[in-house]
Structures are given as C-alpha cells and as structure tokens.
C-alpha cells in the first residue's frame, strides 16, 4: 500500500482507559508525513481518548506509541493540538496574541515570539485581532486563533478535535482550505462527528469504536463503514467528489466481525 511520505507515528497494540474503564483496545495505527486522516466514530467510542494517547496525556495500559523524525525514532516530538472549542474557557482574560504565543511555550521563558507569531496570525487572517480578548471573538475567529496556536511551532503532526463544531458552513470551507494547505507540511489527524463534511477533505478515514479501523486507501463507502461496525451514516452530496471502493482486499476480519457475519 503506497503511503504519503515517511512514517511519523506508530501505535502498537495500545490499550488504555480511565480508572478501571477500558476505552481503547488493541489499537494499531500508523501515520505518515502527508496523511490527512479523518477519525470518526459514535459518541464515547474513544476518539478524543485516541488523541490523548498520541499527545501523551494518558498512560498506556499496554502497547506502545512511537514517534519518528527523519526516519529516526525520537522522544520529543512536535505536535500541534487544537482542542474542542467548547473545552476552553472563552471568558478567560487573555488576548489573541497571548493565545497564539502559548503554542510556543515549550521553547522556554525567552520566547522568540515576535516574528513567528506574527507570521502565523497573518496566515490565519487574525493579525488585526491581535489585542482583542478571546471572549469578544466569533466562533469562526476563535477557531482560527486555536488553529494558529496549534501550528505556530511548525509541528510535524497536527491533531484536531472536532474543529468544525459551532462554526458556520461558510467559514468551514475556508477552514478546510487552510487545512489542505497545511497538509503539505504536516500530517493531520482530525476527529469529526460529521463524516459528510470531512469525507471530501481527508485522504483517508479511521473509525474508532473501542478499537481502531483504518482504511488506508482512502476510499470511503457505506459498505466499508458497515464492515468496520462503524455506526456512522455516510452522507454524500452530488458535488462532493467521492470514490467507490470495489473490493475489500486486505481488510483483516476481527473476531467481532466474524461473529457479526455469522
């Protein structure tokens, strides 16, 4: 299977959860430098948990997460993260510039902020909002601020958790254009609840439902999702380019699927 670029991330046999409640089981996943993967799945299936595992926020029960840069395994790996907008306190007294700058905090207290921050704010078209408090921004502006924070450090991997919630459709289109452009420089993993919207944007889809099924060829059909026991409806519009998958070669059957088939 031909993949885009070099391997950047690898999850092997990962189990994890909260307290004693297991959320993810035996997750095997590979991400390459130019991947743009949409992660779908029902509520509570572990989509955000998967992002937390990759970000190193959650201890693993079993398995390993490995990061690669220039084909070498590394321990410090630059990742950009954009949380769900609803998870961040929008009334916190902070101005746009400081939010974006916080994406560089790992560089220590002497932030060479100026140039890098200005460039990314111009790119996201938020330079004029520099001194505005976060609480005064619209949903779309806030979305761009958090994307700016995620990419200001030029990460090799960008993780987005439902970035399209609370944003109007017109803005969504601009947002996906920005993502497509960013995808030239970094791999992108995007959690979404709305497969219809992302199906035309991403290069492939992974479904999380207790474990993870990643169809690497990027062709998405209802049959494919059914075979993953992925309870998501694929909504296609005539104008959305989509391809039809002819066969299911290479999709390993799991125990549950066999049970389902029987």
């Amino acid at each position, binding site marked *: 299977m031909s993949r885009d670029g070099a391997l950047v991330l690898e999850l092997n046999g990962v189990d994890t959860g909260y307290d004693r409640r297991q959320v993810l089981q035996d997750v095997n996943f590979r991400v390459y430098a130019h991947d743009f993967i949409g992660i779908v799945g029902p509520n509570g299936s572990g989509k955000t948990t998967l992002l937390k595992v990759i970000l*190193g*926020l959650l201890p693993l029960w079993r398995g390993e997460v490995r990061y690669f840069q220039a084909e070498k395994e590394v321990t410090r790996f630059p990742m950009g*993260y954009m949380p769900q907008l609803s998870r961040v306190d929008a009334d916190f*007294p902070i101005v746009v510039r*400081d939010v974006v*700058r*916080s994406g560089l*905090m790992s560089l220590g207290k002497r932030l060479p902020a100026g140039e890098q921050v200005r460039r990314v704010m111009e790119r996201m078209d938020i330079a004029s909002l520099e001194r505005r408090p976060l609480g005064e*921004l619209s949903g779309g502006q806030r979305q761009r601020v958090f994307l700016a*924070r995620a990419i200001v450090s030029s990460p090799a991997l960008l993780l987005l958790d439902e970035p399209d919630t609370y944003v109007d459709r017109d803005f969504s289109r601009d947002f996906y254009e920005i993502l497509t452009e960013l995808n030239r420089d970094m791999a992108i993993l995007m959690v979404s609840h709305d497969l219809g919207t992302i199906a035309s944007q991403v290069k492939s889809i992974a479904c999380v439902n207790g474990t993870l099924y990643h169809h690497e060829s990027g062709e998405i059909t209802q049959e494919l999702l059914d075979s993953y026991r992925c309870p998501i409806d694929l909504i296609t519009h005539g104008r959305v380019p989509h391809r039809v998958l002819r066969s299911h070669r290479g999709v390993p059957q799991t125990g549950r699927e066999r049970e389902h088939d029987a």
Partner: protein
Amino acid sequence: MLELFQYRYFVHGVIAAVLVSISCGFVGTYIVSRRIVFITGGISHAAFGGVGIAYFFGLNPLAGAAFFAVAAAVSLESIAAHARVREDSLIGMLWSFGMAIGVLFVFLTPGYAANLMTFLFGDILTVSTLDLWLMAGLALIVSVVFLWRFHRILYLAFDPEFARTQKVPIAGIRSLLMVLTALTVVVNIRVVGIVLVLALMTVPPAAANLVAKDFRRMIPLSIFFSLASTLGGLMASHLLNVPSGATIVFSALLIFVIVRIATIPRRIQSDSTYFNS
C-alpha cells in the same frame, strides 16, 4: 486626617493595606481567572483549624493558620488528582473539617479566647511589626514569581491540558501557586478575617475584569482596587467606629458596583461589535 498618621497603629494599617493589596492583586487575578475562588474559601476556613490548635498549645495562631492553609491547599491538589472524589465536595469537606477542629480546640482551651474574633473578622489596626514583615516578604515573593514566570502562569491558568501537550512541566508551578494562594489567605486573615477573606481576593480582581479582559492588565488594576478598598475601609472604620473587616468588604463591593455601572455603555458597544463581526 493627616494627624491619624501620628498613630503607630494607623501607619501599620496603611502599610498592611499596601502589602496585602499587592499579594491579592496577583494571586486574586489568578484564582478569579481560573475560577477557583471556592478553593480559596475552603483554604481559609480550613486555616481556622490551625488557629484553634495553636491556641490550645499556646503557639502563634497565625503560624497554625499558615500550616493548615498550606496543608489544605496541597492536599486539595493531590487528593483531587488521585482519589475519586469530586473536587467541590472535597473543598466542602476541608472547609467544615477545619472549622470543626478550630471550634473543638478553642473550646478545650482553658479561659476565654480573647482575640478569637480578630481571626474570624480581622482587624487591620492591630497588625504587629512582625506581621508587616511577613506581609512584605509574601508580597515580594508573589511579585517575583508572577513577573519571572508570567507567561507560564498565564498559559497554565488558561489551558492546562494544552500546556501538558507542549511537554511543559506544570505540576511544580501549579503547586507553588497553590502555596502562594494559601499564604495570601493567611495574611488576609489578619486584615479581614477568615469569614471575609474571600472578599479581598475576589472582589477587586472581579472589578478589574469588568474593565480589562487581559490577565496582564487585570493585575495592576486589581492591586489598585484592592488598595482603594482597604484604605477606604480603614478610613470608614475610623470615622464610623465600626470593625474594619466589614468596612473593607463594603468598600470593595461598592467599588465593584461603581465599576459595573460605569462599564455598562462600554459593554453594550462591545456586544454590538461582536454581532457585527
């Protein structure tokens, strides 16, 4: 008015007002922004346990309060993180536990606890020279920590999870801020007392937040409002001959109401720009 400065107790009161306002301006901005005001209430009431025990053993009550306040702050952090207890329930438990211990030990102490009221309701006019040195030390430490680690504190308060994704160690600075919060509570106990301690740490920053939606601008404004509240309360207390703890809280609330009324037109304006953008 100036003749008041002949009195040593009044000069002490003014110096205490300045020093406490500095600590409260920094720490208060942090707790109000992070929405952890209730934690501060828990810490101050837990401190009463230390006051009671110190009374019983004939030790310095403020030292007992400091010990209990810091212990409460640190255990809040670690228990909430490791045990499966909801944080606000835990605060409620620490709050009442401290008060219960305090009541018990004050009861067990022979004789009448003369200045117990001072700890419950404060008295800025009775601060000693030693108290002033402690307040000055805390104001210095708080200022240095906030100015030295300003960005880290801001980012940590704003979005701790994001800070963790950036592999920035946050546990240390977070605990340090909890300890500084506890110590600020303790010096406040001398000024406004355990029952009213929340006032100086929340009302001035909340008033500042009406004007400034930016952490770095909230701090000096909070210090200013806090200073106006303590000095105004001090004067009112002297003129009306009523307890200073209460007049300080009233001044702080009065300032909040005035700022709130003054910012009404401004808010309407900014709301309309929000909808137009």
